[in-house]
């Protein structure tokens, strides 16, 4: 036993203590002279300015690139009078309706599939290869098959979006299940929980943050397959609106549609993040 080594350390004399400062004990507030949000705002403004300028100088023909003002005017006109027999709001509602119907379907199928993958070896063996097969296929590739099998009605459009959403939902759920702490499960079992009760009262709530992340990713994936889905004999929808406009070379409506789709995606993402904070306030805190 050697206790003496402690005495060999430099000792602090009385009265000296307050002059000693431990460098890491008081981190300085980080004073960044500019925030990344400000940079983003400037970036957007620069892009808009470049767009306006190139349109004003007629660097490219308005058929290829309409001016921001023309797009804005078109936005007002379509919002009020409509385009191809429906107002902008009706197009948006049609598209959102399809995406949310698909989301419900993806949750109803994807969450149980994800639970099965995460909980049971057999479930994993069955669903993992199927999902891995489905995941990388672009929607335009399976679109014809969906039409041949299910016709050109509304269910086909919803199905195309739902297929794109299924893998993110199921895989996020599975990864959430695999991340559940064994101690939590053991604690529940030792308190008398049956297998089913462990799934319901421990595994599902533990995986909830991950499931919600999956829904957010799925919504993004679904929204981005919208145009493909609305290729199929649609009469309304943002994707349909863009395609019709493209056929008549109404480029300002195309650009306007793209911006509306992007804005809605941004808003959806924001809303889901809010819901996540409401629903799983403990995420990242345990």
């Amino acid at each position, binding site marked *: 036993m050697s206790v003496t080594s402690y005495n060999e350390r430099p000792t602090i004399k009385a009265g000296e203590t307050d002059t000693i400062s431990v460098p890491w004990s008081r981190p300085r507030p980080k004073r960044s002279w500019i925030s990344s949000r400000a940079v983003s705002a400037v970036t957007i403004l620069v892009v808009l300015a470049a767009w306006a300028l190139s349109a004003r100088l007629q660097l490219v023909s308005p058929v290829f690139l309409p001016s921001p003002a023309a797009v804005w005017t078109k936005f007002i006109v379509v919002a009020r009078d409509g385009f191809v027999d429906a107002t902008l709001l009706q197009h948006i509602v049609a598209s959102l309706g399809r995406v949310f119907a698909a989301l419900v379907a993806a949750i109803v199928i994807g969450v149980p599939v994800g639970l099965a993958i995460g909980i049971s070896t057999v479930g994993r063996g069955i669903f993992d290869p199927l999902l891995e097969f489905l995941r990388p296929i672009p929607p335009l590739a399976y679109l014809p098959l969906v039409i041949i099998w299910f016709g050109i009605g509304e269910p086909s459009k919803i199905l195309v979006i739902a297929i794109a959403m299924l893998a993110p939902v199921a895989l996020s759920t599975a990864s959430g299940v695999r991340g559940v702490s064994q101690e939590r499960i053991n604690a529940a079992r030792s308190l008398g929980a049956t297998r089913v009760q462990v799934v319901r009262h421990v595994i599902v*709530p533990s995986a909830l943050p991950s499931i919600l992340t999956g829904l957010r990713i799925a919504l993004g994936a679904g929204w981005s397959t919208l145009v493909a889905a609305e290729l199929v004999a649609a009469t309304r929808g943002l994707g349909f609106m863009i395609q019709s406009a493209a056929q008549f070379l109404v480029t300002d409506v195309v650009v306007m549609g793209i911006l509306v789709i992007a804005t809605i995606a941004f808003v959806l993402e924001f809303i889901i993040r809010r819901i996540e904070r409401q629903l799983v306030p403990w995420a990242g805190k345990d």
Partner: protein
Amino acid sequence: MPHLVLDKVSVHYDGQPAVERVSIDVAKGDFVVLVGRSGCGKTSLLNVAAGLVEPARGVATIGGSPITGPGPDRAVVFQNDALFPWLTARENVAFALRLRGVPQAERGRRADDLLKLVKLEGVGDKHIWELSGGMRQRVGLARALAAEPEFLLLDEPLGALDALTRERMQTTLLDLWTAAQVGVLMVTHGIEEALVLATRIIVLAPGPGRVVRTFETGFSRRYASGEPIRSIKADPAFAAARGELTDAIFEGEPA
């Protein structure tokens, strides 16, 4: 009176022996503490008692019938409280009652009683992440007691707490042990903690885990019959026991 018995239990992990022929007998009202260096298989033995690990050889029984899995007659408290963050403190405590289908008003009342017992009155509506480490461990204890177990299995329940909180929690544990009339099997690294809490201390040595000594101690009974904890710790007999226990734990290890 029911006994929790491990009879010549061996535990293997991947074919490697972790515990070799260890026998432990916990009666209701006993406070048995397992101590020993890392790798002596303390937690493995606790997990066998909990029904979470199957012994390679030997049998574990409770009240004479073999242990085949976890059950509310042997509630476990883990080092990392393993509480459910989506539930409030009260809902965590009431978890076992909810599993049994006890009506909500009834289980809320009983959870509040248990929170009072662990000196956490008034925090029932708090979320788990709003509580300190010591408070969380108290919620964990109350949650285990709600299952009305005959035995409490404690896996280093105070291991993650700071020294002062730990000391306070030790008396809480003794109070619960007396109030709930349970048998306790506990794993700890703390030598003093073992002496304060135990009625019997089992010293294990590693490679593979086996019992090297058993001490019958009476300090916790003295606390239970009213002697203050400070006066017990100041007793020369306590210091002597401490030295003896330390020697037993580090026996055969180069100083």
